[in-house]
């Protein structure tokens, strides 16, 4: 129905059009400042509101979201987001408040933040929290800066290394570097767990911390967690959690109990705020008492019935110009309040059930490198298919033709041709069955019609895109005058 030619804003721009009219000046005009301060020309497109709306509406129709269908992007927890929480976040009393207003004009906002800190601390079994980080990676940054400050405060300046498992998300090693640490990689063992031998060998007084994703990016719970914690702590290191996969432990297991000193959470995953096509997110950090004084600033404190912003005594400082992504906090708070303890537990249980169901159903067709119970996600390998000349990329693109978003691919890097499927708890058995059926059909196509996969996708608004050329000859913007 939408046979549309490709066009961009400059193509529909015409001098004299306007998308939004502004009032006339209602005060006397004054002289403009000296000419050298003034801009000569401003070449922005000019379009009417009609054309604007049609253009962006048509873009939206060329995009796939959770509301369009199943989105089993591993590690990303693409769950359905309760619609009403969107409205709550738009209440004028939440959206139309200025960060520099006197705090006693925004007690509701501070109460919400304070309670969210408390709720997250309880959910993770930690002692304190700061909501300042604006995404998971910034939460990681906060964590490792706290590690640094902590050791410094104890005079242990020689701890300049961070241990990172080989299965870790890219943000883990990248964050370590940003914090001036050297990264030592620890391999996984044959079961997909951390190789304890290596850990023991590498762990020493130069190590500031081990960053551990739990459950791991292989979707597995590492049963050696108590030993790992011991090994790290015995040598004076800290155990820092990447809590991006908390969705599988919600209401069941507490990070604090597992020995973690700090964990960052991805509110935009576990706590059901939509991803927005790549953000905004929020990455609060929860810590044990030993790190509480180092938390990023500000935190909200409560004194009698008064809420205040406070700077922890040895804070690593601010991570942003305000208090973190408040709009995202509102939705996460709404989510926790709507579920309660029992509801959170149902979330993780169903997320895990769904992942294991897919695992069992697809195991006969795709290589399963770690054949054990998984938690929120399952990682297959496209090795079998690769041997027949069909790559994981081909499979992913073919999945699009079946009306599903593809899983995460080629991550974690420890699994060759990885296919990482995270169904989440908001999907029904019917949906999983339909996806499983498609995956099985695709496995059949690999044998019978491999060309179908090499040329996939066939039914998307564009066919397979040339990424190599995009990188080689970057075209990163249009120009107009």
């Amino acid at each position: 129905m939408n046979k549309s030619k490709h066009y961009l804003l400059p193509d529909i721009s015409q001098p004299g059009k306007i998308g939004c009219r502004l009032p006339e000046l209602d005060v006397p005009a004054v002289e403009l400042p000296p000419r050298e301060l003034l801009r000569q020309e401003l070449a922005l497109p000019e379009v009417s509101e009609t054309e604007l709306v049609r253009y962006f509406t048509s873009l939206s129709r060329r995009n796939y979201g959770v509301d369009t269908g199943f989105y089993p992007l591993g590690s990303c927890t693409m769950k359905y987001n309760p619609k009403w929480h969107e409205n709550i976040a738009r209440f004028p009393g939440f959206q139309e408040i200025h960060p520099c207003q006197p705090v006693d004009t925004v007690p509701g906002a501070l109460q919400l933040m304070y309670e969210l800190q408390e709720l997250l601390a309880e959910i993770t079994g930690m002692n304190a929290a700061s909501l300042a980080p604006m995404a998971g990676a910034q939460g990681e940054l906060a964590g490792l800066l706290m590690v640094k400050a902590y050791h410094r405060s104890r005079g242990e300046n020689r701890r300049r290394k961070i241990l990172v498992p080989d299965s870790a998300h890219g943000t883990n090693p990248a964050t370590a570097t940003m914090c001036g640490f050297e990264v030592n990689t620890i391999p996984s063992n044959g079961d997909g767990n951390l190789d304890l031998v290596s850990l023991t060998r590498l762990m020493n007084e130069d190590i500031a911390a081990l960053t551990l994703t739990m459950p791991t990016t292989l979707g597995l719970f590492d049963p050696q967690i108590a030993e790992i914690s011991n090994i790290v702590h015995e040598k004076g290191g800290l155990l820092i959690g990447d809590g991006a996969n908390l969705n599988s432990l919600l209401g069941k297991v507490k990070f604090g109990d597992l020995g973690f000193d700090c964990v960052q959470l991805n509110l935009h995953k576990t706590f059901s705020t939509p991803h927005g096509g790549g953000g905004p997110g929020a990455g609060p950090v929860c810590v044990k008492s030993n790190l509480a004084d180092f938390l990023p600033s500000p935190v909200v404190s409560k004194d009698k019935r008064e809420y205040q912003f406070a700077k922890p005594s040895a804070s690593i400082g601010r991570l942003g110009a305000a208090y973190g992504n408040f709009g995202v906090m509102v939705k996460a708070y709404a989510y926790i309040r709507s579920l309660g303890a029992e509801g959170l537990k149902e979330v993780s249980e169903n997320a895990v059930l769904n992942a294991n169901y897919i695992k069992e159903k697809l195991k006969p067709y795709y290589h399963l490198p770690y054949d054990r119970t998984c938690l929120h996600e399952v990682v297959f390998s496209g090795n079998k298919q690769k041997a027949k000349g069909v790559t994981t990329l081909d499979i992913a693109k073919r999945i699009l033709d079946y009306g599903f978003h593809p899983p995460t691919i080629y991550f974690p890097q420890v699994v060759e041709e990885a296919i990482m499927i995270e169904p989440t708890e908001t999907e029904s058995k019917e949906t999983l069955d339909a996806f499983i059926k498609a995956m099985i059909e695709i496995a059949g196509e690999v044998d019978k019609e491999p060309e179908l996969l090499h040329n996939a996708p066939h039914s998307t608004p564009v066919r397979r895109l040339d990424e190599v050329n995009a990188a080689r000859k970057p075209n990163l913007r249009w120009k107009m005058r």
Partner: protein
Amino acid sequence: MPSPYIPNTDQDRAAMLRDIGAGSIDELFQDVPAQFRDVTFDLPPPLTELELREELYRLSRQNASLDDYACFLGAGYYHHFVPGVIGHITGRSELYTAYTPYQAEASQGILQAIYEYQSLVCQLTGMEISNAGMYDGSSAAAEAALMACRITGKKEVAVLSTVNPVYREVMGTYGSGQDITIHELKPDFEELSGKYACLIVQQPNFLGYFEEVARYARLAHGAGVLFIAIFDPISLGLFQPPGSYGADIAVAEGQPLGNPVSFGGPGLGIFTCRKEHLRQMPGRIVGRTTDVEGQPGYVLTAATREQHIRRERATSNICTNEALVALAATVYLAAMGRSGLRRVAELCYHKAHYAAKAISKLKRYSLTSDQSFFKEFVVRCPTPPGKIIRLLLEEKIIGGLDVSHLVANGMLLCVTEMNSRQEIDHLVTVLEAL
């Protein structure tokens, strides 16, 4: 009662467990050592949508919203007009319920929108390239400083003392990991040491006044130091863009472009630089390419800079950014267009000057500087501004920012197109009467 967000029924769960060959869901958690399992969580009881709505509505009503107050507060977050059309577009669920567009063929809508964003930001700033956005203005500034250090191989950063102090603090946080030191320079220096990786200037500055950016650019470049500008995107409707005064990197808080103040978050870190620095840039970048049939299309590109490919050698750890806020900024710039953005800037300029003049005529108030300014300026109050701000609240006015730690009895006022003449006159009358 079942949850509306968990569609599996008891029968579904039973059937799935059967197929898995597990006796219970608990069995699936067998890898979790028993002592860690099924601990208690002390959380408030669940609320239905009806209850949640009432409770959160009540909470929200405790806050004094800008819908009901006249606001003269700026200082980095601005109460500008947000065209209604924006919410309708960011509310398209195909866009806001999507992830970062890793699978290009299923994400052309978002990718093309980001390409528009990058282009519009370049047009606005006069800079050569833009990424897809960072967390906020301050972290973008901090990342710019780190990037300058990477490019130059130096570890000292010079920041003008007139830069937003909160931004300096964030740079400090970001720099601390790599032992990068932030030096505060008073505006009147005549020479710049070559030890600095970069010189960071805010235009207009934190107190609202225009800096001599051309001079700073000259000094910086003369010393082999990169020149980084922090700008106000709305000001660019009327004033020189960073690309024209020699910025190597230019960053900004993008919230004013079509987003509510939202208690300071989510914001948007605009990040632009010269083309030659592409490989050192942090963040996501979208590029235009073609599909196998030759149709144009868009993909994430230059990913070898990024953490998911480059890991510990990445230019930054940033992953999730502020895509939806960037989308709002895209729609804003398109809706305003050439003449609209200029008009917004003009309205701000003239109204702010109208207010400044009227206040300066009051007996007990004065302006603390006669420099040129855009929409913010500092007023010297007869008493500590904190007290004045309290009294203004009673008149349904959110006054300026107390900057008495920087300027004696100084209050930083901001006037935008949202402030009607009536509001400004009211402010002046009330100030006079206090």
